[in-house]
């Protein structure tokens, strides 16, 4: 049996895990193609008009899989810890897909809510797995391997690599200008949607840090800086990473990547912007949507990196003058 996994949203965080899990259960896993103009356009046409671009893109990827597989995996991601849930659009995703796109193959939409503890995941995996096999040992094996695979995936980010873009640490960490590039993985790691933003920055001579490269512990240290914890998992991750870099100032500047119509980001972005202003950290917000032009983006990034270089030269001169 063929199961399809759309290459969008949580794909960039959890794909290796689900792929391993389904493969060990004996399923053939099919990913949707890398984003193309057609996939984006299909998504825009079908999805509800005022949804954000990543949600539209998800619709496009589901449509890309429709005729290739017998079942599509559209998880309902609710939460992975006690403090927050995912964006409401993740919570309602299976409903949105189900009632928007016609002639869908059956959806496999387990509700993933780990509020009660990590043990829940095994239960969910068992429930999903038992649809395909009667052998509980096989499900357990698949679960164990899947978790291991996810850990490896996360570890490679911590070493400075970006596996979804096939970049390793020798590429991301070689530049002279250090930048924190913060954005949800489903925008940043989709080369079509982000217009190859990370690659562009590397070519401009930037050392790139993304939110997965900062260990969870370092993020949690920043948790108290917010008067009220945000409601959304990814957003908490972003804002804590930003606070981390604001505190230790190991980067020359921070770029926030967001999508047109992104709900949570209006709060995240403004909070970061105000904070950055206070401590005089250069801060750039890039809003992406399905119509963003490549050249315009390039100009903005070039200007930002150039400005950071000038700023550094000025700083160094100052120091030598007075020191």
């Amino acid at each position, binding site marked *: 049996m063929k199961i399809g996994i759309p290459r969008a949203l949580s794909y960039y965080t959890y794909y290796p895990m689900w792929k391993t899990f389904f493969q060990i259960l004996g399923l053939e896993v099919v990913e949707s193609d890398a984003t193309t103009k057609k996939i984006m356009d299909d998504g825009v046409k079908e999805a509800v008009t005022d949804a954000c671009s990543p949600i539209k893109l998800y619709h496009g990827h589901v449509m890309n899989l429709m005729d290739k597989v017998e079942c599509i995996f559209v998880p309902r991601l609710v939460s992975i810890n006690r403090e927050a849930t995912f964006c409401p*659009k993740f919570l309602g995703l299976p409903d949105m897909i189900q009632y928007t796109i016609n002639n869908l193959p059956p959806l496999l939409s387990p509700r993933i809510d780990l509020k009660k503890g990590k043990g829940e995941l095994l239960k969910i995996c068992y429930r999903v797995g038992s649809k395909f096999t009667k052998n509980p040992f096989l499900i357990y094996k698949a679960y164990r391997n899947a978790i291991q695979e996810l850990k490896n995936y996360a570890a490679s980010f911590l070493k400075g690599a970006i596996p979804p873009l096939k970049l390793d640490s020798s590429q991301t960490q070689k530049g002279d200008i250090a930048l924190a590039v913060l954005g949800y993985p489903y925008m940043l790691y989709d080369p079509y949607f982000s217009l190859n933003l990370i690659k562009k920055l590397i070519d401009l001579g930037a050392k790139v840090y993304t939110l997965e490269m900062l260990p969870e512990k370092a993020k949690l240290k920043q948790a108290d800086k917010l008067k009220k914890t945000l409601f959304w998992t990814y957003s908490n991750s972003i804002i804590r990473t930003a606070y981390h870099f604001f505190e230790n100032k190991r980067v020359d500047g921070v770029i926030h990547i967001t999508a047109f119509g992104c709900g949570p980001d209006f709060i995240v*972005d403004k909070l970061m912007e105000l904070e950055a202003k206070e401590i005089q950290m250069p801060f750039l917000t890039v809003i992406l949507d399905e119509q963003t032009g490549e050249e315009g983006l390039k100009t903005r990034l070039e200007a930002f990196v150039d400005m950071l270089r000038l700023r550094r030269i000025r700083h160094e001169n100052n120091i030598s003058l007075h020191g």
Partner: protein
Amino acid sequence: MKITYPYMGNSHIAIKNLLERLGNEVVVPPRPSKKTLSYGTQHAPEFACLPFKILLGTYIEGLEMGADTIISTGGVGPCRAGLYTTLQERILRSLGYEFDFITLEPPSRYLNALYKNIKKIINRPMTLKEFWHVIRFVWEQLKLFDMAERKSFEIRPLEVNQGETSKVYRECVDIIAEARTIEELKEIKNEVIKKMDSIDRRKDFEPVKVGLVGEIYVVLEPAANLEIEETLGELGVYVERSMFFTHYTVSNAIMDLFHLAGERNVKKAARPFFNEMCGGHGRESVGNAVLYAKRGFDGVIQLSPFTCIPEIVAKSVLPAVAKKYDISVLSLSLDEQTGKAGLRTRLEAFVDLLFKKKQKKEGRFA
């Protein structure tokens, strides 16, 4: 301490009474206007939803009028409204205002903080009995406002002289606002009913029925929805709203205190289409649409601020509800650019369609 607070429908009158009787000086916020909105849009992020912008503008106006304390409500998410105050406080401080921000969080998770905050706004010695009396008076007043509004929805589509209902309704609101004691409120109730009933009505006309669902602020605040109920009423539509201030308070804040879920029938009705609590009123919008359809309504109008996340999820499922129950659905998203004339044109077209459909159903379409 001079307190200001968000403006929402008629509730601002009752909230003023409440805060004054608890011994505070109150700065009553002005009704949201173009000015409010321009303050809001100037300082709020671009993608902030309309209520955020209106509230931010309201606070700025209140602070300019001399308030030094703002009181507002919080929430537990995942709707963004629960984080409004966190960001608004930062924005206002970055503009150089100095003030206290009191956020009333829902009781189930933050009972202690809520208690402390309520104590902060009681600024005169009073016994528990007096306190209870104040609460009762305010509650009765709020209930009366809601009753008058409901009544205006029934009468407006039938009025002979266009605009009369709205005029009488506004008079009634003023009378209710004047009340000082619970006894007075009881007399006023009869007066309001009498005044409303004396409006001339057509006998030979049957209005189409439309249910109004959506996000709470744009549904309850006429300045945000450009008086949509009045426009609809004048087009010959009987409007029923899924949400009223008192009803909302009971089904959310009070039930929440006992960890109970409010509006269970609505949530149950939403079930086949909408399986998850997505925050805000997304699920309620779908559930109420189903209930209206089952009750034989002709149409449902969904109001949402632009980029409202829960309502976007609801919006993508509503066509399925419309198809299954054969009810017409119109989704309107509102932002600072929405104009009244444009909105009216869309409503006219929708209402025309409803009347045609109704005639066809009754076999009078020839």
